[in-house]
């Protein structure tokens, strides 16, 4: 009995020690694996760091390249413009309904630097066909259309408050004289008095800018030019035309504006004696929600050097309602036309309804109906269906 006891006591620790040795070996093996794992992870870690560093460097390079490229692109000559085609049916004319390419206009702009910019517009109106000769059998009447440089000027704007523009530019007067491009106006037909009181273009110099006033801005244009009747080659007399336009942004109405315009000139020519002209106008526009309102009123007083003074005037009121991408609206026009030889005036009135649908930011489909009456005589109807495309971004 005692022998067995002694034997058990003697050999059992030996078994236990052997088991411990196995566990230690296993533990060492696993620790070794862990060390290998850590080394591998460290390599991955280093690889990741290296990759990230390269990525960032590549990203910065790409960013710089993009900026440089964009800078170059924007310093290039920018080409935009517009075109419009229309189907017109004028009951006053004897012609049947006709299709025409009304405008194709190219606008070239170059921002030379942050302050200097050039702008030019070349307009092809009524699709001039250069290969035909006016009067030829296949070119009856005025088949040639018109090509002209509608605007070309150089602008220097050191700040928002003041800038100088020299060259040919649209007369800053009212609204339609400036915002008249088919893709952005409600109708192809302009209001009756537009270009009848203020001239369409001025060759001269313009001082312009926007002055902050309290919570809004006062946009101003002051200009001097050769005046009406001058050619691009030279002035028609030694007397210059002067004009101004001032408009304040209405802070309580989005796209609201209230402004005044004035213009003075001395007209000369073979068909009329030297005449002093003084034109004034007011305009307003506002938009509230989907409703847009726009109106202009202008009058011009003519005083011949040796004759009786007379006045012409006109106005229009236009209301439009946006329904999604479509706009429907109405405009009432009035213009008091003066016939100098007969020294008589004629009242022109026009009611217009229109519908526009902007199928794309730069493409608008138009349908408009105008009924014009002359001194309450029988009216003439003009129906237009057109597509106007803006050729810019």
């Amino acid at each position, binding site marked *: 009995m005692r022998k067995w006891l*002694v034997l058990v006591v*003697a050999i059992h620790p030996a078994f236990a020690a052997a088991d411990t040795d196995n566990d230690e070996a296993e*533990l060492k093996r*696993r620790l070794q694996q862990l060390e290998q794992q850590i080394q591998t992870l460290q390599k991955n870690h280093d690889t990741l*760091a290296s990759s990230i560093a*390269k990525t960032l460097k590549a990203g910065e390079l790409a960013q710089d390249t993009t900026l440089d490229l964009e800078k170059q692109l924007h310093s290039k000559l920018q080409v*935009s413009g517009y075109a419009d085609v229309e189907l017109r049916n004028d009951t006053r004319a004897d012609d049947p309904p006709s299709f025409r390419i009304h405008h194709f206009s190219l*606008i070239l702009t170059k921002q030379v630097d942050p302050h200097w910019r050039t702008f030019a517009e070349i307009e092809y109106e009524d699709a001039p066909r250069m290969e035909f000769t006016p009067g030829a059998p296949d070119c009856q009447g005025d088949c040639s259309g018109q090509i002209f440089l509608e605007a070309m000027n150089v602008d220097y704007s050191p700040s928002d408050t003041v800038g100088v523009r020299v060259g040919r530019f649209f007369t800053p007067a009212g609204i339609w004289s400036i915002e008249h491009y088919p893709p952005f106006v409600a109708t192809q037909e302009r209001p009756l008095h537009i270009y009848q009181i203020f001239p369409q273009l001025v060759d001269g110099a313009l001082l312009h800018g926007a002055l902050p006033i309290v919570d809004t*801005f006062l946009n101003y244009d002051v200009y001097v030019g050769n005046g009406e009747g001058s050619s691009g080659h030279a002035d028609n007399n030694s007397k210059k035309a002067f004009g101004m336009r001032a408009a304040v942004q209405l802070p309580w109405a989005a796209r609201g504006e209230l402004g005044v315009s004035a213009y003075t000139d001395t007209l000369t020519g073979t068909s009329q004696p030297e005449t002093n002209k003084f034109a004034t106008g007011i305009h307003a526009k506002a938009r509230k929600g989907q409703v847009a309102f726009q109106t202009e009123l202008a009058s011009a007083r003519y005083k011949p050097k040796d004759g009786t003074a007379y006045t012409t005037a006109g106005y229009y009121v236009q209301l439009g309602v946006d329904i999604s991408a479509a706009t429907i609206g109405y405009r009432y026009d009035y213009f008091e036309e003066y016939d100098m030889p007969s020294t008589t005036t004629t009242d022109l009135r026009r009611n217009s309804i229109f519908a526009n649908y902007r199928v794309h930011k*730069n493409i608008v489909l138009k349908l408009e109906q105008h009924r014009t009456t002359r001194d309450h005589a029988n009216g003439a109807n003009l129906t237009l269906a057109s597509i106007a495309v803006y050729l810019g971004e």
Partner: protein
Amino acid sequence: MKVLATQLHRTNGRAAPRQRRTTGSSLVVFRSTKVEPPEPRSGVILILILALIAVGAWLFFTSLFAQRSGISTLLNSVPASIAPASPAPSSIAANAVLQPVIIHRPLVNTENDTDGIEPVAETATEIQPEQTATTAAATNTDAANADAADQRAPIDTSHAAAQILAEHLPMLEPTATAFTPAPTVGAAHTTPDPILARPPIVGTDNTFAPDSTPVVVASISAVAPPQETPNTKPAHRASGLVVIVNKANFSAFTRADISNIYRDRITRWPSGERILVLNLPLDNGERQRFSTEILDMSPLDAATEWSNRTITNRAQNEYRTKNADVVVSYIQHHPNAIGYVPAAAISDTDSVRVVFSIP
């Protein structure tokens, strides 16, 4: 111990001049010349001896079990087989170049993100360091080993990756979402990462809320002083829109200022430099919101108005159309730029400055 047992055997049956009692271990040896029944006294001695043996054995086994228990615990804490760490995935190979766009993932993956910003999880997987370890285990052919590897505490390399990014991304700080699992909405900053911990860019108060009083200004033309406003780290919400400028731009803005900039009425910074106006694409939902709330017109109307200004030679400035992530990147690199993006697209206030928020 064996020696002592042998001695016991040898001395059995021989005359012994003396009786020796040996101690020193748990064993006691008696020598006698003849075998006689033990005396009653000898029985007591035997019991004592057995007791001593029992105590000694108890002490021995106790220490032995303690040792074995420690080893077993250690062994259990180590997987039976360590899965080999996978090599770096191809996307982060040493010669690979990651897409830098990943740094602009939203901090919070908002549900309303319709601005072309992919969910965080989709884009972050490309360089998930944590995934590198766990995925390696998962791809191991030995399923048991993989299970064991999953049971162990994962080696979290996300912190290390974040540190790397912090070193290599001076302007484009790493986002938490780029290297950690996408947080749940609304919990982005509840448990800040000790390494990724940064001044919170998402706060509860809207410092530049439209109704709040701005630091300046009737017009941005009347410039704010070129010093940091009290809110150099303006807080904004993780939802909504934010108007951002370059970090170096300290101009103050009102809603009217922003409207005037985007309507071409203000075209220059107080320094005289042209404002580079960045817009989101026309069909972008965020642009719709911005245009409606700031410009009070639809994006289409705003776009046609700008085109009209351009064609009539009245546009003083120009704007460029970029995606939201590009807007952020662009503004970081261009001190004269201004843009608006979803608030969730901002991950780095050190490079861009939020100047206005639209909740």
